[in-house]
């Protein structure tokens, strides 16, 4: 399984792409594979302020449901509207078309607490 080294990771299996003070958030290849067929994704509204580690949405798979935890504190700037009709994009392309939200990075020091791809890989290997 692949975990791009350009991304940061949470122990809850989200990834964060940092571009200046904007972050893009999705779930990892490990998470989508564990969940199986994703059929519905519920995401907080654009404009909502979320703290680091707070729930910003839920992913419903056929068999199970899992919460989404924000990697950083910030405001939801955008959500991937395509997921409302094609939630399986998260299964098919979790680091690309299956991105979930864009969030402002209000406190860049929080990024230090996130995992690198090798640290994350270590976690899911066990």
């Amino acid at each position, binding site marked *: 399984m692949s975990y791009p080294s350009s991304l940061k990771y949470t122990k809850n299996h989200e990834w964060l792409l940092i571009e200046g003070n904007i972050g893009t958030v999705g779930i990892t290849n490990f998470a989508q594979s564990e969940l*199986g*067929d994703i059929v519905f994704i519920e995401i907080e509204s654009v404009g909502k302020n979320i703290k680091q580690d707070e729930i910003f949405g839920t992913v*419903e798979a056929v068999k199970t449901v899992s919460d989404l935890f924000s990697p950083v504190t910030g405001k939801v700037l955008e959500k991937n509207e395509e997921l409302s009709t094609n939630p399986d994009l998260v299964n098919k392309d979790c680091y690309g078309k299956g991105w979930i939200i864009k969030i402002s990075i209000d406190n860049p020091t929080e990024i230090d607490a996130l995992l690198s791809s090798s640290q994350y890989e270590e976690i899911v290997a066990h």
Partner: protein
Amino acid sequence: MKEVPLSKIHQQKGARMIDFGGWYMPVSYTSIIEEHNCVRNHVGVFDVSHMGEFILKGPHALELIQRCTSNDASVLTPGKAQYSCFPNEKGGIVDDLIVYCLEKDVYMLVVNASNTEKDWNWLCKHNTMGVEMIDISEKTTLLAVQGPDALTVLQQLTEINLSSVSYYSFIKGTLAGIDNVLIAATGYTGEPGFEIFFDKIHSEKIWNAIFETGKKFDIKPIGLGARDSLRLEMGYCLYGKDIDDDTTPLEAGLGWITKFTKEFNSSNILLNQKSLGLKKKLVGFEMIDKGIPRSHYQIFDNNKRMIGNVTSGTHSPSLLKPIGMGYVTVENSKQENEIFISVRDKLLKAKIVKFPFYKKKV
């Protein structure tokens, strides 16, 4: 954890294995939706060898079965099977099962894996008439071959005319060169198909033969995940979720297997419940608002009064919408009635619909 004889093969096929009531079982091989659709459109094979099988023998075998089950097994003739349940001492359900009449005075009971021991003890407790009981669960492999192409695939492996085996009938014979295979036209998917029982020493041979002949029909191994979504689309009850020790067969909509023409454990309690009227009832519902119902979510009426609980729910791969089952108060159980499911503190609208959720297109 206990393993089924074909456990290694499932792992080789890339199955995700889970602990299912103490059994190491395949939940999915590729994707639940893909496997589900494979059974609805082609043919799939489930290894359900974890299920329990008991043989009951002797002149009083029928008497014991009649005492312990709610359906009327006296109508069974050799080669016929019947869905039934064991009511407990308060009218709840010890387990649901299928009773197969193998020959005069010889029956096979097929029970849920996780209840095998409980059921065995329950039968022993009521076996005051000296019925010979043999637990053959350990040495039996059970494969369910289900889907519109199931018959064509299996027909190539046997001389028996399978189209003559009607629903809930069975026949014993040779399949893939193996003798003594019990081929039953039963299943848990709503599709035509067969459940085949045989000695576990032949597991690999029969599994491979089925997959070899099934190749051109796109046959696939199917995990417990799709087994659950397939049965739920049909509104079939799953023990431990939709029925248990605290629900009666009448509440669960299993009145059709509760025959008051005979006496059985708690028949008086159930008869009493029937004449007084039910308080709660198992219903099916589809979501109107977006969200997926899950077991134990609460159900409310339009005045925000709690009226029951969800017992099973999923996104239906055939209907492409979320469906669920649950108990609600009888006043709220009418079809088309609007109910609300509490999903993560939000009340989402749903409506009660008739079983089955899924009807085969003709």
